[in-house]
């Protein structure tokens, strides 16, 4: 297993990812969602160190797309261990874009703000949705600055001005609160979701019913999304993501191989017993 994961990582070997239709649909949704001046996207990064490997690339591709479109993003989390992700992910994406496009800037306070960890789960979301002005409701960001002081986020207004909601998580139950409570009479946002491989089957029922407009299925979803992004923005760099996806794919192959061997070995033993037993 170590060799299967380590060889692609150390050699930098990557293969094209599998085509995932849900990631393609998500790209179309995110590309076509209209944002008028003052409208924002709200992205929840509800993951910690345990699911960082799958969720961080998902958060990066979502933020990269929104940053390229110059959509102001409000980042927050229901999970207290998401602090590192909330700080690190947007900075790294901004730095990567600035390296690619040196004449452009993505700075904190203009491209994104970090509203931090907000406790309360469903209670907080319900209160957020019913607030008359989200900027005032959220109060201050993690730096202590009033959110109303940032020009792009000064007057968000009611939740109707949040046109896109992204939820990136591997935790069970967290995504459900977004689907259930992030809506009110006459308003339903466009919801996109990045999940770990283990929660894919659960997320599909929402994708099928239309409550979810786009889904990144584990790191494979993030890898295919990055390929689609690359088709539209050729200078986008997704090498590292493809290498990690290839390493994970190799690990899956090892598990499949172990399952096959684990089933063949007893079968072989049974057959041998019968054959030798009949000749013995």
């Amino acid at each position, binding site marked *: 297993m170590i060799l299967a994961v380590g060889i692609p990582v150390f050699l930098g070997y*990557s293969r094209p990812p599998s*085509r995932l239709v849900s990631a393609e649909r998500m790209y179309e949704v995110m590309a076509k969602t209209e944002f008028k001046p003052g409208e924002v996207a709200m992205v929840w990064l509800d993951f910690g160190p345990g699911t960082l490997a799958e969720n961080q690339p998902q958060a990066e591709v979502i933020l990269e797309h929104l940053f390229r479109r110059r959509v102001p993003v409000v980042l927050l989390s229901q999970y207290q261990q998401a602090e590192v992700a909330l700080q690190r992910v947007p900075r790294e994406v901004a730095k990567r874009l600035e390296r690619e496009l040196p004449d452009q800037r993505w700075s904190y*306070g203009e491209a994104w703000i970090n509203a931090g960890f907000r406790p309360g789960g469903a209670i907080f979301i319900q209160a957020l949705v019913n607030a008359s002005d989200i900027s005032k409701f959220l109060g201050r960001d993690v730096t202590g*600055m009033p959110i109303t*002081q940032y020009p792009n986020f000064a007057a968000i207004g009611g939740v109707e001005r949040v046109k896109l909601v992204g939820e990136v998580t591997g935790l069970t139950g967290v995504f459900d609160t977004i689907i259930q409570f992030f809506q009110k009479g006459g308003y339903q946002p466009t919801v996109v979701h990045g999940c770990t491989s283990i929660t894919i089957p659960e997320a599909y029922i929402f994708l099928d019913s239309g409550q979810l407009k786009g889904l990144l299925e584990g790191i494979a979803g993030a890898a295919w999304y990055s390929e689609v992004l690359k088709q539209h923005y050729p200078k986008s760099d997704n090498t590292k993501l493809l290498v990690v996806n290839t390493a994970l794919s190799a690990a899956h192959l090892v598990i499949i191989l172990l399952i096959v061997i684990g089933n063949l070995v007893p079968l072989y033993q049974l057959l041998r017993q019968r054959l030798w037993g009949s000749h013995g």
Partner: protein
Amino acid sequence: MVTINSSDQRARLIGIFTFLGGIYFFLYFVLPESAISFIGVKDRHEAISNGFIVIGAMAIGLGLFNLVSAHGTRIVFKKIGWVYSLALITGLVCMLGVTSAQWLQSLALSAEQQRSQIISEFAQRIIDDADKTTATLTVPALQVRVDALKLYGFEHLSVLETKLLGQRGASSLLQHELQKNIATVREKLAQLDAVSWGELSPGSATLLKEVVTSGAKFSVARGAYLREAAATTTVQQLYTLLYEGFFNQLGSAMFALLGVYIAAAAYRAFRIRSVESALMMAAALIVMLGQISFGRMISDDMPALRQWLLEVPNSAAFRAIRLGAGVAGLMLAIRMWLSIESRSFSAGKKR
């Protein structure tokens, strides 16, 4: 016969408060918005919700007390495994201490940043107050307020520039950015001298809005500068070591162990013993092969087959599971709301 004693009274009191807490959210959810507004709860909902969140946060304190109590007893009486309890308490104390110190440091940084925010906040306040009628407002005259803004602004910027000369720790890029913002704010404040401040005209309002915008950028730059300078302090480095160095990496390592268990389980436990398990195994293999990069080496249709499996049979099955779980969860929630599940609080004895 059931005897009623103080424990039953306690259970009754807990039941009443549980019911009241639940009924509020239940009614808020089911009643139409017009009814909620009529009662007058809509404007207070945010404050009530915050109150509930605070009460929930009290559970952290209870948990802490419980933890110290349980493990402290083990350490004091040297029960079996007391060394592990000592390790836990030591880690707890260390993390609490360092996090508290880091929190106090960040409070100080925020206070420092807020001094810079005053420029933009005050300018915004002057604009906002000008929209209100003077009959309802008891504030100094516009000229006096603008003069106070300029005085504070210039003084603060001068003090800051002097401090910047002697300060180290933040990168030169951030320092340059901050100096640029200081220059911009100074320029915008100086422009306020160009107009008279008898009353707020569109032109003078525009000048104040420029102070607001440049002041906001300045305080963001100052905040970034302060945080980067603080990153080299002992407290912050200790916090980074414990949180990002130990806690996050150990958390990732714990989850990485699952990979080893899955590999072992793949060989030993995932055995086909019946038709149903064969079907499940085939579905699992198709889904895995459809998701990984190597699946297309077997067939180009692998991803499409996987998609069908997830969209049709899986969705059907999962919907049924979720419906059942949802109904069960609803029943459990109603039982908890009505305190039918709270037998542990009740010590009533039956004869």
